[in-house]
């Protein structure tokens, strides 16, 4: 275990985590992703976030094997202390989306009723579609309940999932995969489903499906998309809070 200690030991409360390795690894794999994305002329599988995630897990897996410990143990002791520091910055980064939202306050004032109605009705339709798709793919009730609240931000989706008979860890995983997918595939999906003709709809969709990462993508597409994705992040979380528990109850999931 001494070599593992070299990477920081969060498991021993007296030593505490050493954060340098986690921060270094996160930056290194993300920059490798950016480099690959650049030299492949923007191939979607080389999106920096996706490369960073896969490469990061692979490197941790290799090192865990090298030191003869399990992957979760090595993750907890070596990566998590640094990862948690970076993770914290998602808090201020989330509230930063109030700024692109306020910049297009004209659109918010004009369409607030359409926005709120679209998110509520769209969410209910999505819940039905997701329910029947998961049922069709043969998932059990526990897994289906874990799939329903994934449009909300992780901090809301996890407790709702637990309260409706789902597995919070699966829901958290779904939220992460949502964000990674939307960041990688947004351009393709927008083209295929012709979402660009309606910037308000595209923005709300990106914020709902991709959380804050989807909003960052939407900001790149345009100021209206960015503002709409920002408002979607807040409103859809509240909608999930209100709509998912009765829906799960109605479908007999708990």
């Amino acid at each position, binding site marked *: 275990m001494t070599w593992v200690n070299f990477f920081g030991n969060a498991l021993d409360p007296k030593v505490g985590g050493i954060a340098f390795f986690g921060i270094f690894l996160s930056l290194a794999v993300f920059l490798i992703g950016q480099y690959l994305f650049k030299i492949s002329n923007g191939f979607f599988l080389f999106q920096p976030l996706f490369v960073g995630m896969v490469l990061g897990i692979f490197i941790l897996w290799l090192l865990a094997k090298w030191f003869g410990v399990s992957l*979760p143990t090595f993750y907890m002791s070596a*990566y998590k202390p640094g990862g948690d520091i970076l993770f914290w910055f998602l808090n201020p980064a989330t509230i930063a989306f109030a700024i692109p939202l306020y910049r297009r306050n004209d659109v918010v004032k004009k369409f607030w009723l*359409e926005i709120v109605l679209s998110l509520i*009705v769209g969410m209910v339709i999505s819940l039905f579609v997701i329910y029947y798709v998961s049922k069709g793919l043969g998932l059990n009730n526990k897994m289906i309940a874990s799939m329903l609240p994934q449009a909300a931000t992780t901090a809301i989706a996890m407790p709702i999932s637990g309260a409706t008979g789902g597995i919070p860890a699966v829901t958290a995983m779904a939220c992460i995969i949502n964000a990674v997918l939307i960041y990688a595939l947004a351009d393709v999906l927008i083209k295929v489903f012709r979402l660009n003709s309606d910037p308000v709809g595209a923005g709300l969709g990106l914020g709902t499906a991709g959380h804050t990462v989807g909003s960052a993508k939407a900001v790149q597409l345009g100021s209206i998309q960015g503002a709409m994705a920002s408002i979607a992040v807040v409103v859809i979380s509240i909608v999930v809070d209100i709509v998912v528990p009765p829906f799960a109850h109605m479908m007999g999931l708990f």
Partner: protein
Amino acid sequence: MASNQATKTEGTEHEAAPILQQMCIFASVLFVSSLISPLFPKSFPVPTPVIGLALMYVLLASHIIKLYQVEKMADFLISLIAFLFVPSGIQMANSLNVFTDDGALTGVMLIVTIILATIILLVVISYTTAGFMAISRKVFHKSTDVQ
């Protein structure tokens, strides 16, 4: 574009506020939000950053905080979002077992469902919005042009 220019001029009236002041505004909004968050009941969780986003918007809309006081910090943080999500992605190393616990087939189906759910959410929400916009336009004769 008119409003874009309006915000531009609003921004150029003042130099951007010093970065420590901008950080302090972000920190205070987060701190106040973290005090509000526990007031919500357990069955209706509203986490700190969601309250913070709403609070920051209200402060901007009521002109208590001006754009030049937060703009630079916000643009910087938003440009970092994809990177800040790397630890969440790598965090999956800790719980990869949820995909294998109920057998490999369930795991694959779970991933397929998540991929489909992502696309469903994007498309259904976007099309629903387009529908409501069409209703506003055709039934209530409201202009839905935005630039």
